């Protein structure tokens, strides 16, 4: 159906054509948002967008349009890398944070192992806790735990072990990623809302 009673949708306005009642773009490109369609048309082309939407069930088209607008905006901002630049930046952030987490978890391990006579609180199972076999290997491999140097190396080797055991296979995750509903997403570079 056309946007509004008489006004064509943004896509038909830009393409200078009659906006049919069953226009595939009309529900997603309102007449008061001309830039939204303009940017998608510039990057993907109206016919490609139309084909993509036609291949999707109706209830998924709004999300698809929003993601196309996001990608097109990223490509206009960064013609060389587009969305991939944002992905690369976020990947680096995740790696750095995982390292920080591993160091922090290794520090807890180190503290716990230095205080064996204290009552140890049972920790809730966590995906990122080291396995029992890792703990026992750390205890047998590092005897002089009170030495500062060995404590530091213990911390670093514990961190490395935790990272190796919990390293996400990000490339595998990318191509096997299943669709999920996104409520709020922010552009990592400019902190603006993903869904316009």
């Amino acid at each position, binding site marked *: 159906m056309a946007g509004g009673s008489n006004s064509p949708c943004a896509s038909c306005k830009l393409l200078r054509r009659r906006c049919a009642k069953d226009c595939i773009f009309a529900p997603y490109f309102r007449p008061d948002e001309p830039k939204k369609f303009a940017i998608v048309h510039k990057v*993907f082309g109206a016919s490609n967008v139309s084909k*993509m939407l036609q291949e999707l069930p109706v209830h998924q088209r709004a999300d698809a349009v929003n993601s196309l607008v996001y990608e097109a905006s990223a490509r206009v901002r960064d*013609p060389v890398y587009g969305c991939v630049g944002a992905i690369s930046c976020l990947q680096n952030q995740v790696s750095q944070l995982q390292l920080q987490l591993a160091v922090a978890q290794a520090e807890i391990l180190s503290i716990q192992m230095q205080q064996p006579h204290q009552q140890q609180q049972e920790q809730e199972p966590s995906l990122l806790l080291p396995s029992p076999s890792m703990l026992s290997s750390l205890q047998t491999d590092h005897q002089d735990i009170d030495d500062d140097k060995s404590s530091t190396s213990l911390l670093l080797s514990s961190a490395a072990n935790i990272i190796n055991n919990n390293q996400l296979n990000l490339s595998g995750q*990318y191509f096997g*990623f299943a669709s999920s509903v996104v409520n709020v997403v922010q552009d990592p570079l400019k902190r603006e809302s993903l869904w316009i």
Partner: protein
Amino acid sequence: MSNPTSSRCAACKYLRRRCPQDCICSPYFPSNDPQRFAYVHKIYGASNVGKLLQQLPERARFEAVESLYYEALCRIQDPVYGCAGIVSWLQQQIHDVESEIAKTRAEITVFLNSNISISELNTQHPQTDDMGMENLSNKHKGPL
């Protein structure tokens, strides 16, 4: 002057056209990888790709084509969210790991504070207002 039919780039082969010597797609879509251009063309269209490449300096075009190919691949794999879905997933990962770091650091603080408290208790005299501790200290010291 055009390239012989056998050395057309993947773009010109796909589009069934002659491949000129100065074909803009030719350096980035070799004929031995037809799928690369097929994916990019499916999502972006050949003319949009050509326009985009023309607007970029030559040194940046290879990276641009790589990123277009990656995004096209993501969109074909996930027609609803494409690359934006990966961005969303990574942002969620960041949030989760940050929460885990905060939780772990809070646990470290608790551990360190409990260690300090225990060591302070061991070095100070026992408090008289705590019946339990007074009885315990009396046991250690023996009858008065």
